[in-house]
């Protein structure tokens, strides 16, 4: 029997190759004692290489490997966001207890594996690839969340994430099977043509399939009411991992969300748009009010992440090029804001006995201005105040939504933002307006948020370049793109244009 090997466009898949190679190398580094501690370095190199190769592929859309993947500007943009986030996370992981626990090699290999999953996901245009990619993304994260074996929180979050995540995957899978059955194809394009046929369009099988897949993706992007894992996992997981998850996972999941819904399921748009819009609205409300009065910063950021997911989902609801661009833009901006925040949280976790409790940042403005500013900026940006990328992002989303005739959702975004100020500014107030003079003296460790083991491991963490550096960098970017957004807008527009079906 004859076998035709598929054509391999090595340029196109080079980023994937680089990552895979990186994983292997990093793993090997773990085996040989002398190079054991080179894990982070190697990981960074890999990520840098991947980023380089991705940029090389910019503006050069091609189908890869028998149409299983498609590398276009959307994929590249999202992959870049994921890679950058990962690089930040690697830096934050230096001297992180979890990494030591898991072993540097394994830890970073897993992280790279997750990144690989994200890259694949952002390029996937075939159900099988889609599924395997999303699992490649998730499974390492399950492990990494639980990787700090000494902290019960870590294990708990790992298990919770695994269980709920697997339910999500199962739902997703089941939905895929329906869609496959209904359309008779696993390729996105094939699905689109398959369900567009007379008699199939609007068939309950397809629609329920859409519903199932929507649930699966909504879970990954923590859209309410499928969001509940988010706060717990964010709080329990080792902070660098949280920072990685918070942005990268969302980015990748949203990428495939866009591709799957705006390419494969486009014919059914009239059915799924309202549903997603309602989900977005619920998410905005739930996320914002849930975050009110949270003392654990990570938990607060978790809820805020939920709310932000709601905003971003608006980009898909809008269903126009502007929407996709807005989505990419917002994700990029969100990456910067979150990085700044999490870097500071990591630093304070190691400096103070309060873990990620809000008391850890009390009167930070006096103690460590260089940490206080990034956190402040990030909070203001998340709250969408002007002169930050957050404002432009919201502006972009709202513009897309109004264009897509979903003004009421835009109003929801506005309302959500108002509520969100209450908890974002609470952090700012703690930093700058704490009761006069009363700095956060090392007292008895907090009950909430921080756990007994969390005594200060590194009282100088706030001065470490690998923590303060990323924080300041991200904050600077947040402000810069708030004032000179055009480059980022161009970037997003290119990504948005990738989905041809919208024109």
């Amino acid at each position, binding site marked *: 029997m004859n076998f035709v090997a598929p054509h391999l466009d090595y340029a196109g898949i080079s980023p994937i190759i680089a990552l895979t190679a990186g994983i292997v190398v990093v793993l090997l580094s773990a085996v040989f004692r002398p190079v054991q501690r080179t894990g982070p370095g190697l990981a960074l190199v890999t990520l840098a290489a991947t980023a380089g190769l991705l940029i090389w592929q910019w503006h050069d859309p091609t189908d890869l490997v028998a149409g299983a993947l498609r590398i276009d500007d959307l994929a590249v943009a999202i992959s870049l966001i994921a890679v950058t986030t990962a690089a930040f996370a690697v830096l934050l992981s230096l001297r992180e207890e979890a990494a030591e626990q898991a072993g540097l090699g394994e830890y970073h290999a897993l992280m790279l594996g997750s990144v690989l999953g994200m890259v694949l996901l952002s390029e996937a245009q075939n159900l*099988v690839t889609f599924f395997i990619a999303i699992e490649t993304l998730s499974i390492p994260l399950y492990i990494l969340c639980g990787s700090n074996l000494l902290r019960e*929180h870590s*294990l708990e*979050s790992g298990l919770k994430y*695994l269980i709920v995540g697997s339910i999500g*995957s*199962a739902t997703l899978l089941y939905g895929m*099977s329906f869609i496959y059955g209904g359309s008779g*194809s*696993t390729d996105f394009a094939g699905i689109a043509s398959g369900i567009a046929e007379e008699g199939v369009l609007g068939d309950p099988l397809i629609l329920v399939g859409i519903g199932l897949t929507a649930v699966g993706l909504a879970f990954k992007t923590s859209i309410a009411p499928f969001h509940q894992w988010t706060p717990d996992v964010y709080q329990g997981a080792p902070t660098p991992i949280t920072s990685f998850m918070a942005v990268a996972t969302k980015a990748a999941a949203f990428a495939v969300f866009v591709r799957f819904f705006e390419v494969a399921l486009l014919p059914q748009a009239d059915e799924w748009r309202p549903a997603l819009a309602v989900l977005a609205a619920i998410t905005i409300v739930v996320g914002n009010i849930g975050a009110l009065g949270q003392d654990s910063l990570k938990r607060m950021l978790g809820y805020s992440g939920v709310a932000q997911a709601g905003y971003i989902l608006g980009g898909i609801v809008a269903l126009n090029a502007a929407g996709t661009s807005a989505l990419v833009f917002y994700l990029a901006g969100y990456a910067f804001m979150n990085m700044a925040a999490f870097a500071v949280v990591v630093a304070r976790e190691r400096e103070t006995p309060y873990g990620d409790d809000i008391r850890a940042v009390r009167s930070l403005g006096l103690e460590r201005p260089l940490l206080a500013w990034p956190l402040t900026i990030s909070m203001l940006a998340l709250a969408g105040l002007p002169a930050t990328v957050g404002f432009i992002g919201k502006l972009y989303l709202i513009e897309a939504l109004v264009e897509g005739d979903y003004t009421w959702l835009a109003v929801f975004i506005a309302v959500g933002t108002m509520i969100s100020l209450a908890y974002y500014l609470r952090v700012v107030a703690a930093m700058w307006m704490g009761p006069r003079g009363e700095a956060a003296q090392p007292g008895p460790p907090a009950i909430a948020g921080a756990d007994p083991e969390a005594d200060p491991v590194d009282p100088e963490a706030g001065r470490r370049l690998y923590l303060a550096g990323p924080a300041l960098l991200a904050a600077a970017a947040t402000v810069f793109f708030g004032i000179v957004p055009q480059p980022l807008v161009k970037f997003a527009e290119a990504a948005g244009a990738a989905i041809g079906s919208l024109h």
Partner: protein
Amino acid sequence: MNIEWYIVLSSLLFAVGAGGILLRRSPVVILLCLELMLNAGNLSLVAFSRMVGNQEGQVFALVVMVVAACEVVVGLGLIVAIFRRRLPLDVDELRELRG
């Protein structure tokens, strides 16, 4: 034999698996129930692949098996870790994180 039968059976299995997750507290059993759900998916995949007469569904099913295996491995790993940590093997006991 009508394909419908297979699909309905698979959805029944899916529902049973889901119900199991909701009802059982032992992480091991919950993992088993996840297996049930994934297998339900597999069944419908294979059935549909028969229905539409191409084998992509079957390939998909294979991939899913691998994935399921991986999840099991990781899940069991976590369970062992939790056990080693002398924590109760009951998902209801693991609720430090809440609110």
